[in-house]
């Protein structure tokens, strides 16, 4: 098998996913094409050599529709011979895009590829892609569909994570993200976003609230309690998990991943193309896996995907120096730490989506870049990225510095 190397990884800052957000006026196609352009410039790429661009996007409708990857390639002035494909594995789309891009290289069918993702949640809101899973009664009933916020609260209830547990996790995420920004740990990957006049739109993750404390979080109302009770969703979750007496609604705006806009891109290729283009490989993609898990609790995928990828790589958690576990909700990470018995100081060391936001289709590739930067900064070797995924899935990737 050919080795797939990571040559570069960049991302936009994450803008608040609201009409007051700094990236709201930038269309998703521009987020994606500005990122691709930057990747080309930074690496002095002859784009004719790129075999494929794979971008994750979870709501590929309206302005994010019609294969945004190919349109971004054209808008980024890449050579017209570069194809593009958009994929969707819900929240892990950005990572899956990198895995697919790497798989093309590993299988010998491509020399140079780009994996990445894009999501403008302020312009194409969550849920706008519809989908049978949540709407078709025949499917929703069979799978005991509940939205992920309810799943997160179910997860916390099942594993007894209290409001204090999840809040404490969130406070730390904010602290770590803020510190990482202050110490410029993200500087290698972040690209500033300018408008068509060259005016700066955003150069930092604007969701971070460094002033977050246990006290400030304590005043926030649970986000999913009303819909859980009012529309019967709690009851559906309990029908599936009757051993739980009730759903303890612990998640709120301060300990759930934030709604944001952003894009990311990762340059992946074999050894020869790196030599040809005079690029230095930073890491290789060692192994990756996706897995399906129970869909109602939905968010336990990371532990199972990790176990699967460990088997594939003939490794275990002890071989991993740093982990990026997407902070979809605080309970997701708490469960991961508990299930794999991992110490918190190896996980999300620079904060995560609770503090900085989770631009659904892009997050996976952002986490890959963040992890690689941090492995380099600390001069460590091996890292694992994993995300929980809608409808009960998980995706995990192991990277190894070279």
């Amino acid at each position, binding site marked *: 098998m050919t080795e797939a190397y990571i040559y570069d990884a960049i991302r936009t800052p994450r803008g608040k996913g609201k009409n007051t957000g700094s990236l709201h006026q930038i269309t998703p196609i521009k987020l994606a094409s500005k990122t691709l352009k930057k990747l080309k410039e930074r690496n002095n790429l002859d784009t004719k050599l790129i075999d494929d661009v794979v971008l994750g996007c979870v709501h590929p409708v309206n302005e994010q529709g019609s294969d945004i990857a190919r349109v971004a390639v054209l808008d980024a002035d890449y050579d017209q011979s570069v194809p593009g494909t958009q994929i969707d594995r819900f929240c892990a789309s950005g990572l899956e895009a990198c895995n697919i891009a790497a798989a093309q290289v590993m299988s010998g069918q491509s020399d140079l590829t780009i994996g990445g993702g894009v999501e403008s949640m302020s312009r194409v809101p969550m*849920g*706008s892609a519809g989908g049978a899973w949540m*709407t078709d009664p025949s499917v929703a009933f069979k799978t*005991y569909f509940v939205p992920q916020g309810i799943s997160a609260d179910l997860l916390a209830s099942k594993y007894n994570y209290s409001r204090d547990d999840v809040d404490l996790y969130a406070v730390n995420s904010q602290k770590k993200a803020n510190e990482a920004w202050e110490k410029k740990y993200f500087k290698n990957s972040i690209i500033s976003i300018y408008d068509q006049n060259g005016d700066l739109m955003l150069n930092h993750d604007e969701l971070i609230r460094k002033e977050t404390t246990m006290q400030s979080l304590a005043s926030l109302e649970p986000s999913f309690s009303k819909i859980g009770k009012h529309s019967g969703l709690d009851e*559906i979750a309990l*029908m599936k998990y009757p051993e739980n007496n009730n759903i303890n609604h612990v998640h709120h705006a301060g300990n759930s991943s934030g709604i944001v806009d952003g894009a990311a891109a990762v340059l992946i290729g074999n050894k020869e193309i790196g030599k040809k283009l005079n690029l230095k490989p930073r890491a290789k993609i060692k192994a990756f896996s996706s897995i399906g898990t129970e869909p109602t609790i939905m968010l336990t995928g990371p532990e199972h995907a990790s176990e699967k990828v460990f088997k594939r790589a003939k490794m275990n958690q002890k071989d991993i120096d740093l982990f990026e576990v997407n902070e979809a909700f605080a309970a997701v990470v708490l469960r991961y730490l508990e299930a794999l018995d991992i110490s918190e100081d190896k996980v999300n060391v620079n904060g995560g989506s609770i503090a900085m936001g989770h631009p659904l289709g892009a997050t996976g590739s952002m986490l890959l870049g963040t992890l690689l930067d941090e492995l380099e900064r600390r001069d460590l070797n091996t890292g694992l990225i994993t995300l929980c995924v809608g409808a009960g899935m998980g995706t995990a990737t192991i990277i190894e510095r070279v």
Partner: protein
Amino acid sequence: MVQGSFELSNNSSIEIKGKSFDLNSFKGLNDILQKLTHENKTKNISVIGNFNTELQLNSIFSKANEIDEALSLLQHITRTIEKSSIKFISHVNGVVRGPALELVLSCNYIKADIDTFLDFTYTSEGIIPFFGSIQRIIKMLDYKKTLQILLTNEKLKFEEANSLKIINNEISKNIDKKKPFWDQDFTNTFIYFNSKIHSTYKNKKPAYNAILSIIFESSICEYNVGMSIEKRWAKWLILKSLIKK
């Protein structure tokens, strides 16, 4: 229970007689409608009589292999009324329910007295409208209100029916021209109603599932395709209850 029938008087009115209707009653009504539309002499037909009616389910849907035919006949009747160049005007009062309600809904105009009560009790009795009325209600109102009315077995009083313009209002002949409706609100509406029904009835009341599925599946379909979807779910529901017996 008084056996139901339909009677044509002076080529100007159809009277609904009796309370409980079997397939033969509807075959009779179909003959009347064929005659009227074939002769094409009449401009207006009034529908009068007793509107508080019910279907003799056991007799209409007793055999699995005859369900399709029976459902087709029921839909054919309302489609004939709806599409005919004759203007059908129903004159209703008191409780309007069961098959009479479905016939009334297919008329071009429902002239209603102040004591009128449109009783949409179907699902709680384990049934759904069998004459294709769901597509009609969606067209008259919208899919959300239709879900609400049918899933909560609403009884619309005169004032509400009036304000919703179901009664005392011309129903457009363009009823067939239905726009698709899948948007963010549609998704949220279905998440809400699916979960309400799932958690409340725990899959033990198939009529509710059928209503949800009909409205969901017909959402992007043309009117006549919607009718066909209604028929398939009606058959599913009837087969389910036949198997139970």
